[in-house]
């Protein structure tokens, strides 16, 4: 089973049925898998804060939402996380490609990477970091935790995590 299939299986097993995405090379396989699942309403966003708005509405409508985005989006979404998702206490699993870590070929990506964990920590957002395939075994528990505590939760997935699957 591919790691993308496993992750989306975990989403489905936890009732996640509304996922918004922005394009990402690393996450392309997961996005394709989300699109392929009839159990999930897949709604591409033009920007990640827009996606978080969609997720907030979907949650209030009875869905279990999630967002799939790049870590650069942390820079885009701080206000939305603080004044919408956290302020109204809503759950939001954030599956995040962690560009700018080991094996990164584009220097500019490093600039956001060095801020990513500090920003998440400053926002008091529970954060998990997947380096290797077996780290994804925690996905099920992370999703249960997110919907238990009604918080945004970050899952950082670096190139090493995806790298074993042919891309780099």
């Amino acid at each position: 089973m591919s790691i993308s299939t496993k992750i989306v299986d975990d989403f489905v097993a936890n009732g996640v049925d509304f996922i918004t995405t922005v394009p990402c090379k690393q996450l392309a396989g997961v996005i394709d898998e989300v699109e392929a699942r009839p159990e999930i309403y897949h709604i591409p966003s033009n920007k990640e804060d827009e996606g978080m708005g969609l997720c907030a509405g979907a949650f209030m409508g009875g869905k279990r939402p999630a967002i799939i985005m790049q870590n650069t989006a942390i820079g885009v979404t701080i206000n939305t996380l603080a004044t919408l998702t956290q302020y109204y206490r809503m759950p939001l699993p954030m599956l995040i490609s962690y560009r700018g870590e080991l094996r990164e070929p584009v220097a500019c990506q490093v600039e956001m990477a060095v801020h990513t964990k500090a920003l998440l920590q400053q926002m008091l957002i529970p954060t998990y970091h997947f380096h290797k395939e077996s780290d994804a075994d925690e996905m099920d528990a992370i999703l249960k935790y997110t919907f238990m505590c009604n918080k945004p939760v970050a899952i950082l997935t670096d190139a090493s995590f995806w790298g074993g699957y042919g891309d780099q």
Partner: protein
Amino acid sequence: MIRSEILREIAPILRDQLVVCNIGLPSQELHMIDDQPTNFYMLGTMGLSSSIGLGLALAQDKTVISIDGDGSVLTNLGTLPTIANNVADNYILMIIDNGSYGSTGDQPTYAGKKTKLEAVAAACGCENVVTCKDVDTGKVLQAAIDSKKMTVIVVKCDSGNIKLPVITMDPVVIRDRFMKSVQA
């Protein structure tokens, strides 16, 4: 008419619907005019009224009205293609277009200059875009609800604000009672 006068006039129509109301004065005005558990007041996050409303409409069957402003839609212009391409026939985006950023002191928006949001929405693929004058808002809104077709309404009105207090209700209380109304 100014926005608060329009809200006062359409309050009887809004009362029976799920309403997601834009940050700042629009939420304060709606809260003062006719507070209902079916109103979701945004206390922050400018620009996302349309996105929250669309997400809510896609998630369940009841009619959802997002009350937005021209400045707010300009903040999140990507929302219009997302709305156009994810058709929810229980969704109405009502843009109260007074050509200004009301909550911050009526600075002019580009919608008050050369930009026509109704043309932008149509170009983005929104199929039912209605432009109306302030005095016709109630009639047009009711027609949109009755049509059961996803509709974008651009209401042209005057800029201007009234003095009124902020909303002190706890955000989690707003959210909780709203969710109970959605489920009812």
